[in-house]
């Protein structure tokens, strides 16, 4: 890795950790709330998805409005910026999945693989969708704002499921146990399509990125 | 050294004149170092290239000389040279234009000399 990439990645990860920390704190707050109000824990795994998924989606907008602008104005090539953004998101997804894997295989080994697949596809989808929304917001298109709202609602709703799960084995676990491999495959194809579309769209747009 | 720069003349000429003035008034003595271009640039907030142009003007006139690695110094005899130069300039700038103006006002030579003598008495 070149000196410049290292420097940029270091700064970028520092910013990213700050963002993740905010959502981890929110997730912990929700846990405390659940504990006091309902005398039980929210579903840890889904909260982990929330703590990773939310910043991952938020970065779509933040990268395009803030980080890329900052990096371009300090004289870093767009190619390098793009690469570093991908590295960061990849690292965060891998870290998230690793933590989830540890939790899921301890608690629900029977749905472990399915969960990993669905969760992985979910994060890829969030990444791609976030980038599309981010680019559109940067281009000051109305659609961007709409996409942002849809995105946050989707992640919020998925995470909300965990609050109403009985004793950690609630609706989601049942749902995952019932889901067929075919359905997962369909979800996967959809997620990968959105992800690939988002990446290609972002890569094309970053070449024309302008600091206003 | 500090005098204020104005817009009437080129900055580098003003810089050269200020150094000349300092030599005339013994603020800088012969064989003494004069401020460097960078010092002048910072003092007057001007581009060092302009300050250098002013210094070079004095080098060309034989008023300053360069000591390698040390800086610019005042030539011995510089003061006399400046005086001579200023005298020539005085003649051009004041005497000639004085006569011209006198002529256009119809002041004759005798009257003009009378005026000069009167002014001197005061």
């Amino acid at each position, binding site marked *: 890795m*070149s*000196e*410049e990439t290292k*420097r*940029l990645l*270091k*700064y970028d990860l520092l910013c990213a950790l700050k963002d993740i920390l905010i959502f981890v704190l929110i997730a912990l707050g929700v846990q405390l709330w659940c504990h006091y109000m309902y005398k039980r824990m929210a579903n840890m795994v889904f909260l982990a998805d929330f703590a990773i998924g939310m910043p991952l989606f938020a970065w779509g907008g933040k990268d395009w*409005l*803030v*980080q890329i*602008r*900052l*990096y*371009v*104005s*300090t*004289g*870093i*090539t*767009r*190619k*390098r910026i793009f690469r570093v953004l991908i590295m960061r998101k990849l690292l965060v997804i891998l870290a998230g999945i690793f933590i989830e894997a540890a939790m899921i295989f301890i608690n629900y080994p029977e749905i472990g693989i399915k969960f990993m697949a669905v969760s992985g596809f979910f994060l890829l989808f969030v990444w791609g969708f976030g980038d599309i929304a981010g680019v559109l917001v940067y281009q000051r298109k109305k659609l961007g704002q709409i996409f942002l709202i849809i995105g946050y609602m989707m992640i919020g709703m998925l995470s909300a499921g965990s609050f109403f799960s009985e004793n950690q084995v609630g609706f989601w676990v049942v749902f995952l146990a019932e889901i067929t491999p075919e359905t997962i495959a369909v979800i996967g194809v959809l997620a990968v399509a959105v992800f690939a579309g988002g990446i290609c769209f972002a890569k094309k747009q970053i*070449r*024309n*990125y*302008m*600091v206003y | 050294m500090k005098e204020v*720069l104005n*817009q*009437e*003349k*080129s*900055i*580098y000429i003003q810089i050269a004149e200020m150094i000349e003035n300092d030599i005339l008034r013994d603020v800088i003595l012969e064989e003494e170092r004069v401020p460097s*271009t*960078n010092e002048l*640039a*910072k003092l*007057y*907030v*001007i*581009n*060092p*290239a*302009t300050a250098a*142009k002013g210094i070079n003007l004095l080098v060309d006139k034989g008023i300053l000389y360069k000591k390698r690695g040390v800086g610019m110094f005042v030539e011995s005899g510089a003061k006399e040279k400046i005086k001579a130069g200023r005298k020539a300039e005085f003649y051009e700038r004041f005497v000639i234009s004085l006569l011209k103006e006198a002529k256009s006002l119809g002041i004759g030579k005798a009257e003009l000399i009378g005026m000069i003598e009167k002014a001197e008495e005061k």
Partner: protein
Amino acid sequence: MSLELKNITKCYGKKTVLNGLDLTLEEGKIYGLVGRNGAGKTTMLSIASAQNPTTKGEIMLDGETVWENQKCLNQICFSREIVNSADNVSSALKVKEYLRMAQMLFPYWDKEMADRLVEEFELDEKQKIMKLSKGMQSMITIIVALASKAKYTFLDEPAAGLDVVARENFYRLLLDEYSESGRTFVISTHIIEEAADVFEEVIFLNKGTIMLKENTEELLSRCIHISGKAEDVDDIIKGKRAFHQEKMGRSKGITLMLDGGEIFDKKGRDVEVSPLSLQDVFVALCGREEKL
């Protein structure tokens, strides 16, 4: 050693901001960039630093393309004017965070210098940038520009919002850094008069092209103002480049631009000849256009 802008055209939508602009910035000079509002100064600096793509044309640093070339980009720093707006990044950061970012991302960052300047400008590092006054925001862009140590450094309106003491202080700091390092600076400003002596060369940008790029002293030495009886003035300016005439009764005033090395000839006419300031020259050239 030079930074070249070759035949640069830049359009925002249907609007052409730069139109086939050519410019060569030589190493080791302080350039003043002057132009009216909307002349394209910021756009030109954005493009010269590859922060924005061109519509047409190319930027070359010592013969190498700058676009997407990290080696070249490391030599260039364009410290943008900070604008307070909702989608502006830098203004949401604290001074300290912003400078830490600069320290981590600029390859030749001089931390000691940045710290010294923060102290000298009496900036509160814990403040958010958007909460600072315009003048203090200018100070931050100045700190970033100077401490970046980039060989080619561009500053957009660094004097904006600074009081007169701070402005003089800035020009002194600039000259200090310049005489020590020999870096190239391009500084855009609307406050022409007090900066004129700092610029070795001035660049007049007008309607998206370079109208003039010349040594400041030389430009001033060949621009004069003539006034007198209209027919005397008309006779003198015959066949010369004259701008910006003003008429009052029988008298006429005009700005004359001599060719390099040309000695002004009054042709025996009784006219008043006076020197011009850089601001006068700029107004004459870029103000109302009345070429005769």
